């Protein structure tokens, strides 16, 4: 059985911390019977959420703060990425993969929603963005894990 575990990371909005965040979350997730493709998908989703915070939230500024909270329970991984940046004016519009910077933002949201089972993007212009993502441990893996 997966033992509950969690961490909270508070990092500067530096590009190098995108890799740090996905490494940390993947290491936590490896404590559950996720398959290799699942772990790869988790890495992409975390990378997108933290990139959004660094690149969009703080506009490339490196002195902002990004918080990554990850919780592993018996049946799921939950990751919350939050910033106090400029926020996303219209999340629905950002999803539609417009031109320019919006294109990356839209693809990022598409990847998060495709690779995780549940994604909520909450944003208040001028106050920041909070992304909550969950991925369930595969049912077959859970059953096998109980043997």
């Amino acid at each position, binding site marked *: 059985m997966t033992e509950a575990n969690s961490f909270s990371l508070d990092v500067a909005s530096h590009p190098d911390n995108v890799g740090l965040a996905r490494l940390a979350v993947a290491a936590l997730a490896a404590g559950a019977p996720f398959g290799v493709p699942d772990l*790869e998908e988790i890495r992409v989703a975390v*990378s997108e959420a933290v990139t959004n915070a660094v690149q969009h939230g703080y506009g490339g500024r490196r002195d902002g703060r990004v918080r990554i909270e990850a919780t592993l329970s018996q049946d799921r991984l939950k990751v919350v990425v939050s910033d106090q940046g400029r926020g996303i004016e219209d999340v629905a519009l950002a999803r539609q993969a417009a031109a320019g910077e919006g294109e990356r933002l839209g693809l990022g949201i598409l990847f998060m929603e495709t690779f995780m089972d549940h994604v909520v993007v909450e944003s208040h212009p001028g106050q920041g963005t909070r992304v909550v993502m969950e991925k369930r441990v595969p049912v077959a893996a859970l059953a096998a894990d109980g043997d």
Partner: protein
Amino acid sequence: MFYRVEPHLLTVGLEQDLDLATAPAVRAALDTLLDRYPDRDVRLDLDAVSFLDSTGLGVVLGRYRRLAASGRTLHLVGVRPAVAAVLTVAGVRQIMTWDPAVLNDGRKRGGVADDGGQLV
């Protein structure tokens, strides 16, 4: 990053994960090569790229657009499963060809042929 120049083909191999931290340097290095060899199609070897997200994909798509604008093609080789998953979700298959096979070329045999060299 390594590259190899043949009469009608420029092969460029990326040797780092592609994300927000690495994208600027990779983009600049690729553009330098694309400008230096303006009359060649491009083969991008991703065999050593184990991670690519939307920022990394943006680098690839941006080079594709640059090349397409001048009638050149971009072909991806050495695409690993994790990278293929990202390309598939983004619909890249509709505009670009890619090959999961690992290149068995000069690099694997221990050298860079012709007018090749190391950039990054």
